[in-house]
């Protein structure tokens, strides 16, 4: 990728959801979706290549079953992934003023 090209649009972005934070989240989500789509397409291309070269048979990928050890590891990984993703839910949020006051008090000892 050349460094000489600026990918960004000049000017400020509209905040359709009020303060712009939800808009920013949506930007991240859509970029992530486009990356996910590219990965999904690449995996399909790999599958088709493997089938075409006879490394796997058509339908073999669909019929593939993980063994018990892999299944257990996948289940554990999935739970850890979900815990990571939802770590902020129910965690108790704090207003910025309240937080500032708490830090100030901490500093005063």
């Amino acid at each position, binding site marked *: *990728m*050349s460094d*000489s*090209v*600026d*990918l*960004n*649009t*000049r*000017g400020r*972005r*509209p905040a*359709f*959801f009020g303060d712009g934070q*939800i*808009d920013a989240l*949506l*930007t991240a989500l*859509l*970029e992530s*979706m*486009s*990356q996910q*789509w*590219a990965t999904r*397409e*690449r995996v399909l*291309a790999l599958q088709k290549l493997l089938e075409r070269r006879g490394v796997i048979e058509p339908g073999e990928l669909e019929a593939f079953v993980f063994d018990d050890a892999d299944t257990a590891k996948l289940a554990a990984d999935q739970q850890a992934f979900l815990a990571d993703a939802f770590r902020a839910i129910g965690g108790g949020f704090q207003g910025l003023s309240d937080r500032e006051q708490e830090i100030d008090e901490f500093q005063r000892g």
Partner: protein
Amino acid sequence: MTAPLQHDLYVRGDREQAAKQSFVTGLRAFVLNDMAGAMQQRYTQQVEPRIVREQGAAPASGPEVHRAMKTDDLFRFYSSVRYNAQEMVWRSTLRPLADAAQALNAQVDELSQRTEQVGGSLTLNDAVELPKNVAALDVHLAPGSYGNDTAQMPWLAGALYDHGLNVFSFGAMGANLDDIGQSFAHYVKHRYPDFTPQHIVDLGCTIGHNSCAWKQAYPQAQVTAIDVAAPCLRYGHARALSQGVAVDFEQMNATDLRFPDASVDVVFSSMFLHELSVKDIRAVMREAYRVLRPGGLMLHMELPPNDELTPYDAFYLDWDAYYNNEPYYKTFRDQDFAALREEAGFSREKLFHAIVPQYTYMSPDAFAEALTQDAAFDDKTGRLADGIQWYGFGAWK
């Protein structure tokens, strides 16, 4: 999926880049068809009835609908996703173009060698400055706007426009993005078979994608494609040569044409006037009248005027004025299109407008059949979505 452009300057990008472009193409189609449909339903079923209950009357204009919709969650999602999708159009195409800079440079040079064989020309003029509407902001959110170039990529804005529009239009603008030019050129051919223009001028041509269509429809005519932006003209010239189409590209401002009085048969533009201030639109109309021969044709493919639209459809099209860096998108459509032409010198009885189906998406017979009836405005007129029909207005001198 993003269909490949049909010329030698097309850059597909690597697998990941191409897949991301396809994602953006699909995202835009989803936003402009599905999400837009849901938003319209929300308005007619909930928002408008609520306003009627509260205020005794429905919103009567685009801005009134806009005010009512601004806090609606569907409008917010539609707008935020659409804005992001617009940015992603450019981001997904800029990267592969920058990666392919060296190869594209060689391709542009190689194509320019074909000028003698194909015909056409490229005339740049340093004295033509980029006007404020092009230089001061990134039109369509495209980084660098129409003037974007670098020493290594003197054609960058043109290449970005071409590849970006291809992703943007989700297959709705023709295989080489020339459906508008093809549709209007063939509209004129069918409606006015005795009209044989010798000189056709395409104003604000960007990369000449529609200028080429006119040359293909009227091969005996000289076609001059003008624009203020040198990077677009450099690219457009090479693009036309790649297609084997002879078009003369010239750097020129449409408000100050360098053609003698009464020397041109057709003055055409597409999606151009709405990028100009009303003052400049008036100047363009005056210049068109001046350079046209008696019996010549002025024809502008454009967005439909607000007075032909429902308040909701006006609101829908106004989106681009506020959120897509096209500030004149609304003020243009607020004008009295008849008055603009008459003020320039055209006679009222020689004014017309045309609603034209998509030529490259139907058989020539079906197109000819469709033109036997005058189409009416509907919610697909001038609105990029499945089933669009193009709107144009013009005058004979």
